């Protein structure tokens, strides 16, 4: 619909894909956008494939559509093992891009994407989160990659907003704020585009 950017997240239950999706909606809201962020619910459990969605557009009436997203502009894959079992590029715009959490190069990942011709991006979100947060929490770096590639929000504005909300949320734990901010910045720097 017009200027709406549609994003689909693929992850496994427990990895934070839903949280990242809602955080992206939050960040886009903070920069004045009309947003939707919603997960697809079913009988999920830890480790099972899950999907979450964003619709983001400039102000005005916003987006009235309430359905899942079948022709996204961007796809974000939080767990690369899903490439074997889920058709992650289904309906994905070739003008858009897919971002995969992987150590591999975009060219290597492209081989697993059934002939997808659009942009393929990779970022090693697992290693980044272990280095910056001490644990494998890939959704934070993937969120930063999503912002950088989709350009739905100005990336400096995004980093500022995130720092503000993290400082608010973790007022008593400044080290958590710093770790998350490093994770976001590292992801934006290390992102590989192919």
């Amino acid at each position, binding site marked *: 619909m017009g200027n709406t950017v549609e994003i689909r997240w693929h992850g496994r239950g427990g990895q934070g894909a839903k949280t990242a999706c*809602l955080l992206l909606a939050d960040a886009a809201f903070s920069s004045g956008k009309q947003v939707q*962020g*919603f997960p697809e*619910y*079913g009988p999920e459990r830890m480790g099972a494939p899950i999907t979450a969605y964003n619709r983001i557009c400039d102000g005005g009436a916003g987006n*009235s*559509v*309430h*359905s899942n997203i079948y022709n996204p502009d961007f796809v974000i894959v939080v767990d690369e093992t899903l490439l074997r079992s889920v058709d992650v590029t289904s309906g994905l715009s070739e003008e858009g891009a897919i971002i995969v959490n992987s150590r591999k190069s975009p060219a290597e990942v492209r081989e697993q994407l059934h002939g997808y011709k659009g942009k393929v991006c990779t970022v090693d979100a697992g290693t980044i989160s272990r280095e910056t947060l001490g644990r494998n929490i890939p959704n934070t770096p993937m969120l930063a990659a999503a912002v950088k590639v989709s350009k739905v929000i100005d990336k400096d504005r995004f980093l500022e907003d995130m720092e503000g909300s993290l400082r608010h949320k973790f007022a008593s734990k400044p080290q958590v704020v710093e770790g998350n901010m490093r994770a976001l910045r590292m992801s934006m720097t290390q992102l590989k585009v192919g």
Partner: protein
Amino acid sequence: MKRDRMSGNEAVAFAMKQIDPDVMGAFPITPSTEIPQYYSKYIADGEVHTEFVAVESEHSAMSTCIGASAAGARAITATSSAGLAYMWELLYVAASSRLPITMAVVNRALTGPININNDHSDSMGCRDAGWIQIYAENNQEVYDNYIQAMPIAEHCRLPIMICQDGFITSHAVENIELLEDDQVRAFVGDYEPDHYLLKKGEPLAVGPYGISAYYMEIKKAQAEAMKDSRRRIYEVADAFAELSGRRYGMIEEYMMDDAEFAIVLIGSSAGTAKAAARQLRDAGVKAGVVKIRVFRPFPWEELQAALSGVKAVAVMDKSEGFSGWGGPLFAETRAAMYDVSEAHRPLMMSFVYGLGGRDVTISTFDEIYGDLARTAEAGKVENIYRHVGVRGDEEGIQG
């Protein structure tokens, strides 16, 4: 006015917090669980003064509301699906005792097979219980409807359900404009019933046996109150429009002024239908949407006015009535059109859709509008009752 973003469940809980009612009796059930969850946090944080009664079932949740409301308190609850079904017996007690309880319903399919996703079978199942029913398309509407609920219900002395679609809006974060706390409190006002159990010097019985000599008078009084509630719904909507700038009615007409083809439906999918209508208008097709906001009392006059002169109408039910020829919204909408002169009476078809969370997209609505155009061209309805998006169903709409 404050610009924010939140899920539909949080929007309802936030409205409850701004109102700060006397009693909440609730038992958790997906997808409405977050409402009592958020509300419990408000209580724990000392932000509200509500007495929260943690009960062991929805039957008891509604009983708690009935007891509290009869005593003179403002009582609320929230539920979904099987939880609402478990309240069934008490829904009638609340309505016939004329207790203005406010219930947030987060619509979810009734079990059989078990399913946690959205359809309207739960609240449609109790459409004859004597409760006012108001439905929302999005988070803003469910918030706005909730704030209007008590001024409607308490004036009419009827209980009210404020419904939204499970997960589709209850768990989706969207932009919202919130009123200030003092604006909401002034709008909703204090609850000061004329008669209640704890009123000193006025002994009263609530819910006694209604022998045949009295039962029908009681039912007629309920029916009159339901009929009259329509006027109150408009009064409250007018006052709300003054406060918020957002205007509501019994139905919402979208691109209906010169519409030749119309879709009538309830809830979140109306937004998707509107997007389909917008696209078709760009292509020169005179498509329109009628969204039912208030289902009880039924907006028959508004529907007559909106649909009169339209060539073909699809009435879409998100519940199976098992009547053998369409869902409840179809039956009542079509009945409303019986009094319209033949020249202005549209061709009408029933489409059952979205059961158990089956997704509906813009292309689904495109198909339906296409079907309406073909039906209008043929001048008669070929198949009055069909389903949408059912695999292998050649007579149905695929989209």
